[in-house]
């Protein structure tokens, strides 16, 4: 299901035009991004939780050239599916 199909499906269900739905999705993702930028996690019941994790720096070695690289620390967004969702697709 790509973005187009997703919007179409959502607009069918919420009985709104695809254009409106597209705008709403944009606004919603915008809000979520802001939250994540503030280190907030978002938990959706029966779906899962989006969490912000800090990955510490590490040294990776190129197996071919044996070159050692220092990979900097980073902040990532992770998704942890709820047990319900997990069980559903098991």
């Amino acid at each position: 299901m790509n973005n187009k199909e997703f919007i179409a499906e959502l607009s069918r269900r919420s009985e709104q035009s695809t254009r409106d739905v597209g705008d709403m999705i944009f606004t919603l993702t915008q809000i979520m991004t802001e939250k994540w930028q503030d280190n907030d996690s978002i938990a959706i019941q029966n779906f899962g939780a989006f969490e912000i994790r800090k990955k510490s720096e590490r040294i990776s070695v190129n197996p071919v050239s044996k070159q050692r690289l220092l990979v900097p620390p980073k902040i990532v967004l992770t998704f942890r599916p709820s047990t319900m969702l997990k069980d559903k697709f098991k």
Partner: protein
Amino acid sequence: MNEKLNIQNLSDEFAESYGINKKDAEAFVKEFFSVIEEGLEKDKYVKIKGLGTFKLIEVDSRESINVNTGERFEIQGHTKVTFTPDSNIKEAVNKPFSAFQTVVLADGVDIDAPEENLIDALSDETQDEEPAVVEEPVVEEPVVEEPAAVEEEPTPIEPAEAEPAPESEPAAEEPVVEETVAEEPVAEEPAAEEPVVEETVAEEPEPTAEEPEPAAEEQSVEILPIFDDEAIKTKDQPVSHQQEVIALKLSDEKRKEISKKADGSSTPYLMFLAVLAIMICLGIVAYIYYPDLVGEDNEAPTTPNSSQINTLKSDAENTVVAPVDSVKATAAPDSAATAAETPQPAAAAEKKEVTMPITVREEFVPKPGASQTQTTQPAASQATQNTTASQTQAAKPAATQTQTAKPAAAQRTTADGKYIIDGEITTHVFQKGETLFSLSRQYYKANGPYIYIIEYNKDVIKDPDNVPAGTKLRIPKLIKKK
């Protein structure tokens, strides 16, 4: 910050910003996620622009061992839900760390060395932490001095000899600053020679509060004997080469410890002080009774030191005055944080001064007689003596300044004279997550010129360590001097 939001909070926020009622908003948000779920069920794949991709991935069955019983069993193959965030979101989330880049480690750099690079690369972010780290290991300073000196100087024995004095100095410092004894240590042995020099430098910034400048020499003499007699004797027994070896070995350990320290620096300041005090006591006791074990108990601010040197090299001109500035700049937060009279900050400040000789030496080895009157390398001890003497004078007015609130900022804004400001490139609205360093990189492809941005925007930048988002900065056009 760090809050956990549920669907209610999210839909409330959504309702507000999209201008629909809360009920509809919640219905929409719920629908949003249930459509994702359905899409996964149907296509095993849902892609949403601006959010990311949800996918179902098959996991093969595999064998595993029950940790408790040791029995082998098979984990059934199953499908799991994965989510890959959109690259926009990835970048937005990682914005605070976006300045970092993967660095190739040179051969011969040991595993812990990255700390240096990191701190260096980070330096604007770690500025808050750095002084804290420096402040910590009061007793162990000399070891730092040693590796640094060994690298830079042809005669490593000298620093080895110099070692005992600074080491014992904090110990002597705290309890007995006031006491007065005659010139014993000077007569003691040649080893005492250098330490005296170091000492004068070390003492300088803090006694100035109480005593006038010419007393410097005497002071060092005063302070030395009390602990030094003991300390130097015990220390000098092991051959200096051994000391070096030990010190070098230990530096690894120390770095690790420092990195730990850096992590913990967010703990309350009082706790930190208490721990620091205990550690100093332990260190002193350990040092007195088990001089050989000193290495294990103590740690040295190797990283802060070298990073200091790095920043000194990159930011400042190769003049003596410039390093003094930046050293003081780091020294400043300390003394600003607590009154300079209390023993600990004093010791910390003093330590920074101790690091100065190193930088000075470095500067002088490559270019003898750069800006002062010194000449030859073999006369390094004399050279440092002179320069440190001149530095202490230079340092003094500033050292007293550092007791006021924000000399760090003032110090840093002194441009290094490498560039000429020629007009303005553009006006930049300071964004959340940006730093002056990042701006500098963006416009000048280097960290160094950030001071010009501060300089040029003096009127808007009140505290360079904390520039509020939305500040309008004028970016000066810089032309490199030849």
